[in-house]
Structure formats: structure tokens, C-alpha cells
């Protein structure tokens, strides 16, 4: 079993076996992270470029760490530290990277389809680390890995995604991935932050957070961005919290076992209260650790595609 493409651009259209392969590989690579010397030579001699056109700490560190754990050589930039400031186009940046014989490119960009654009003009493997409001596949993969770790399987799990669905690449990737894996997905948020034609995504909509809490067992809480309020999409953070916040009151009233995920960074006291985020039901820090393992798995699977394995992934 191999991945079908050299790129990871999104989870839409990805087959169940492919996602399983990534998750299983991530599971087997994860113990490396706890070794005294957490490094394997799998990608020695390979070069990976991390292009972060949008500010990111967590995702960028996670990718860089994954690359270093696999012994790849890495080069990175984020907006402000490169020729992006000099007006170089994405296409030219890509051509330069090709000339430098880069083997893989990780890209975070504010444009929907930026990773697809790069994949079309580059021979290297392209990994989408978030393209605008479209997809963020490795985030969804690490979410699925984390849920699977707790429940053993994704099949039949009821997952609710709470917050700004319309502008969320995390939500889109999770919806595609979770549905492919046989989970039931519902979303919940202000009607102005749900996309029109959301039914096209084949999911249910919980009108109120109470409905979601009643029905689902896994909750992915999304970060609410203040700029959405400034654009008039909802009246205030106060009202958002009142209607859709994962508050300690709502949390305490629950009489069942639930799991809380959040892609970070957290707005404590707005979309989620500290008591919930720091509770035993929260797997937020497991997500962070699994993020490194999932990205190691993706890099390994994409970059060793078509090549004979020199060494097993677990060294």
C-alpha cells in the first residue's frame, strides 16, 4: 500500500486506506519521540523547504521538528524574512526551489489553492500546511489520530465541530477525513459563520450547542477570530460565548464521557473556558504531540514513494 499521489494537498477525495496508512504509520513512528535520542536517519540527505506565508508557530514548529526527527535538511522562512517582501511571486519562489533541488515543500498560504498551484509548477512533493480557508490536512490527520487513540476506531464516532465553520480550513479537512473514516460529523456555530450550501458537505447542523452536547461525544472547538466580529458576522464575543462557548457551566452539566479537541491557539474564556481546556477530557496536548508524529508519517510516506525503503520507519 502506498499513497496515490506525491502530494498532500487536502483530504477531499483521499481514500480510506490512504488515511489509515498515514495514521498507522504515525502510530508506529510516535515512540521515536520518547527515545533518549529522538532521531532516525530515514530522510537523511533529503531537503525540505518550509514556506510559511502566514504567521504560524505551532504548525511550523511541528513540521520542522518532524523533519529534524527524520534527519532531513530543512530550510524555512516565514513572511517578513524572505523575498516575499520584495514582491517575488509564488511561481518564482517555486522555480528557485526547484533549481535548488528541494525534495519537498511545506506551504502555508492565505490563498485557497496555493498548494495546488505550487504542485502544478514543481516536481517536489508538496504538503499543504493550510491554504486560506480551504484545507489543513495534517491538522485533521492529527485530530483523527488523537480521536482514534482514545476510542480505538473512528468508525461510528459522533464528532461535533463548534465555531466558525465558513472560514475554517480545519473544519473542512476534518469533515472530509472523518466522513471518509466512517465517523458522523455535525457542525454548530452562528448561522453567519456556516457556509451557504453546507449540506453539500454531507453533514448535519446542530442549531444550538446544547443539541451538539446532547448528541455528540467528540468536540472540536475552533478558534473564534476577532476580525470576523469586526466584519459584522456576529455582534460580540460576549454573545458568541453565551451562545456557542464551551463554558464550564455547560461542561459541568454533562453526564457523559466526552473528548475535547482544539487546534489552537486557544482563546481562553471565549470559545472554551480554562476549566474545560485543562480538564481530563481535553486531549489538546496529545494533539500537539501527535502532530509531530503525523507529519513525520506524511513526510516519510510521500518522500519515500516509489523508492525502495532503506530502513524501516521505526529505525
Amino acid at each position, binding site marked *: 500500500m502506498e499513497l496515490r499521489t506525491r502530494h498532500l494537498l487536502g483530504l477531499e477525495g483521499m481514500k480510506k486506506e490512504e488515511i489509515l496508512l498515514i495514521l498507522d504509520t504515525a502510530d508506529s513512528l510516535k515512540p521515536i519521540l520518547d527515545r533518549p535520542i529522538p532521531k532516525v536517519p530515514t530522510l537523511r540527505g533529503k531537503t525540505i523547504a518550509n514556506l510559511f506565508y502566514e504567521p504560524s508557530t505551532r504548525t511550523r514548529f511541528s513540521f520542522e521538528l518532524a523533519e529534524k526527527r527524520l534527519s532531513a535538511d530543512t530550510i524555512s522562512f516565514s513572511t517578513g524574512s524572505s523575498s516575499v517582501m520584495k514582491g517575488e511571486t509564488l*511561481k518564482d519562489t517555486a522555480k528557485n526551489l526547484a533549481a535548488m533541488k528541494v525534495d519537498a515543500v511545506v506551504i502555508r498560504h492565505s*490563498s485557497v489553492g496555493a498548494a495546488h*498551484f505550487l504542485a502544478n509548477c514543481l516536481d517536489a512533493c508538496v504538503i499543504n500546511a493550510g491554504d*486560506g480557508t480551504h484545507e489543513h490536512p495534517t491538522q485533521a490527520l492529527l485530530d483523527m489520530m488523537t480521536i482514534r487513540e482514545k476510542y480505538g476506531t473512528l468508525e461510528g464516532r459522533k464528532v461535533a465541530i463548534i465555531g466558525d465553520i465558513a472560514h475554517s480550513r480545519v473544519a473542512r479537512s476534518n469533515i472530509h477525513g472523518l466522513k471518509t473514516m466512517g465517523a458522523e460529523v455535525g457542525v454548530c456555530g452562528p448561522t453567519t459563520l456556516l457556509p*451557504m450550501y453546507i449540506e453539500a458537505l454531507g453533514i448535519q447542523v446542530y442549531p444550538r450547542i446544547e443539541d451538539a452536547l446532547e448528541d455528540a461525544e467528540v468536540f472540536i472547538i475552533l478558534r473564534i477570530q476577532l476580525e470576523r466580529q469586526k466584519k459584522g458576522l456576529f455582534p460580540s464575543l460576549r454573545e458568541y460565548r453565551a451562545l456557542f462557548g464551551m463554558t464550564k457551566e455547560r461542561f459541568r452539566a454533562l453526564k457523559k464521557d466526552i473528548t475535547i479537541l482544539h487546534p489552537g491557539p486557544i482563546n481562553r474564556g471565549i470559545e472554551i473556558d480554562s476549566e474545560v481546556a485543562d480538564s481530563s477530557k481535553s486531549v489538546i496536548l496529545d494533539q500537539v504531540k501527535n502532530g509531530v508524529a503525523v507529519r513525520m508519517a506524511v513526510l516519510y510516506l510521500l518522500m519515500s514513494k516509489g523508492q525502495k525503503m532503506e530502513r524501516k520507519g521505526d529505525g
Partner: protein
Amino acid sequence: MDKFPIEKGTLLLRPGRVFDPRVNLDRVADLLIVDGKIAKIGPKAGEGFEGEVVNLPGAVIVPGFFDMHVHLREPGREDEETIESGCLSAAAGGFTEIACMPNTQPPIDERSRVEFVLDRAKNQLVTVHPIAAVTKGQQGEELTEMADLIEAGAVAFSDDGRPIDRAVVLRRALEYLKMFCRPLISHCEDLSLSEGGMMNEGVVSAVLGFQGIPPLSEESGVVRDLLITEYTGGVIHIAHVSTARAVRWIREAKARGVKVTAETCPHYLVLTEEAVRSFDPNTKMNPPLRTESDSKALWEALNDGTLDVLATDHAPHSDEEKDMEFQSAPFGIIGLETAVGILLTYGVHQGRMKLNELVYRMAIAPRKILGIPENLIQEGAKANLTFLQLDLEWQVDKNRFFSKSRNTPFHDWKLKGAPIGVYNNKKLFLHPMFLNKGGNRH
């Protein structure tokens, strides 16, 4: 190879058929052209003629096509299209006349700029009719000197590219234009509803995460403009209609006698929002590609006359601008050299439209709306002709376009039916791609 087009005041055209529904002409005949005018039509029109003969076996000669929605980029962006390259592109696409939009840099908003366009176009096969801006600098505030612009040669007024934001400005423009019997061509859009949008708001935008341009933004613009047109008794032409509901409102207004005409473009008929899944920037235009049911409604509206005109909205953009990630690329595609082939293939050959309707929407209606003399195919009239080869199968190749730009979503499309040449202003153009495929000179 000849330089295009060639001066040829006098010649004999020998097609398979000559067709002009206005004069009940549809028969096998030759056309003798003397000094740019049709001297004789008939099977023996060339008897005794010893000049140049152009054989067009199997071709149909129809009245020269007119594209009333073209963006030429001169002055300002001559790298994307000049008046000369735009004229060549039009000729290659089967058009003998075009009307060009005023959103150049600077815009066509005063007499000297109309004169500039006409001067640049004066020796072309394709006749260019400038459309002038409604407001100075297309800023949507002060009206341009419309009488002066008309006298200089402007055939209509438009701030196309943007809507006229303030209702009162549109009202005054429509009222003022009543003095001159010239139409205002309106780009209908409520910018507050479409701001930040990249593609149609629909199922595909929901999946891709693009901010949508709701059909509502176009429809609310159409409805507002219809209300103002009705109230003022003015004359309006609605550009690039793309939604089913916009069609419904126009149909309803026409039934009540509102002086409105409307157009749509080939891409809205044969492409839908699904095409955007490719992230190809050549699927990005404004208004955006809509849905299957919108396309269907547009075909119906062409059949029942709600939509009067087929125009291209030819909008050249350089590769430097257009060949980049979708969100950063500008709106707009070129269309002059693909429109006729697309419409023959998907309209005439697939039974959605008859040839005489196509001729009406592409040759007759635009001239009526803009008050430009008819180009009848009859003896004594100026020869202004398009040559069609209805059954010719060909493949679109953007690298062979005469336009300076390449931003088309139709590259590599296989089409049936092509414009193989045109004749106008004593000039002949035979498309080099189709030479020896139904057109040759002796």
C-alpha cells in the same frame, strides 16, 4: 503567408451558401464585391469577372458579427491588448465590428479619448465603436460630457467593471441620456454583497472555502437598475447576465414595457462553478461562473428573447497577472476567438439554438441596440460579412490566438464549426488556421 488582413476592394466570393434572415436570403450563390460593396448576389454573379476569386466551399456567408462587449487595453495596458491586436483577434473570431468598453487607463471619459480610439482603429478591417464612461474617471459621481462624446463617436455609455454605486447617479444618467437615444450599459452588482468574493457562492465554494459572490449581488443590482429605468423611462442594456433569477426579473420587466435589453456570454452557457475546482485562474471572472440550472435558464432566455445579445466580455490579462494563485489573479477571460466556435458547437449543433437565432444575437441585435446601421446582405449594400464553416472540427490553441493575451478557459477544447474569415472595410481576412480547410484564394 499574407499579412493580415489584406486590402481587397473587389473580389468574387464563392461560398456554399449565403444567409441573411432579414432579407429572406438563404441560398447557394456567389457574391461579387466591387469597391467594398455587394455588387451582385447569385449563382452567376461572377460571370465575366476576371479579378480575384475566393473559394469557400461548404461555407455559409452571414452578416458580419458584432461583439458589443470588448475590453481593449489601449491606452494603458498595451502589453495585454492594443486596439490593433484586439481588431485582429476580433477578425480571427469572426467579428467585423466591436464596441469597446471605456475602462482603459485613462478611461474613455472625454472627447479626445474617443477620438484617440477611433484614430487608432481607422484603417482596420474591424470597425471599432467606442463606449464612453458614464461618469468622469468612472468614479460614479459626475456625469461625463455625453453630448460631446456622442458627437465624437461614442455609441453607448458604461462604467463596466464596476456598478454605478449610487442610485441617484444612475437615475440622472438615464434621464440625461434620454435626450440622445443612447443606451446605458450596466454592470449590475451590489458590491457590499460581493466584496471579497472569488467565485459563485454555492456548493463548490462551500467545499473549497472560497468566499462567495452570491447570485443575489447581481440580482439585487439588476432589480435596482430595472426600477430606476422604469421610473425614468430611460434605456438600459444589462451586461453579462449570469443568473436564472436575473433573467426572470428582466423577462418580467420586458413584459411590462421597460426599455431594457440584455446580453450573456458564451462562458456562462457552457461552464459552471464546477470548473473552479481546478483552481485555474482562467475560470475566474466577474460575474462568476454559476450553476447548471443558471446555464439552462440562460439558454432558455436566449430562445425566448429575454436575452437579446451574445457578447464575449473579452477581457485580456497578461500571464504575469493571470498565471498565479487563484485568489491573487484578476477577474476576466478573453473570448473573441472562441465565442463563435463555442456557440456553434454547444448551441447550433447540440440543438439549443438555430443558426438564424445565432445570427440575430451576434449580428443583428447588437447593431439595433447601439443604433448602428444594419449590414444587410443585398446588392448595393456595404459588404460586411462573416464566413462560417459549420461542420469544421478544430481544436482551440491559445498559442495561435491573434490576441496579445492567452487567458482562456477553452484551451484545447474540441469544437465543431468555425469562423473561417471575415470581410469588411474593403479588407479580407481568412484565418490561417483554417486555410485549405474550406477556404482558399486563387
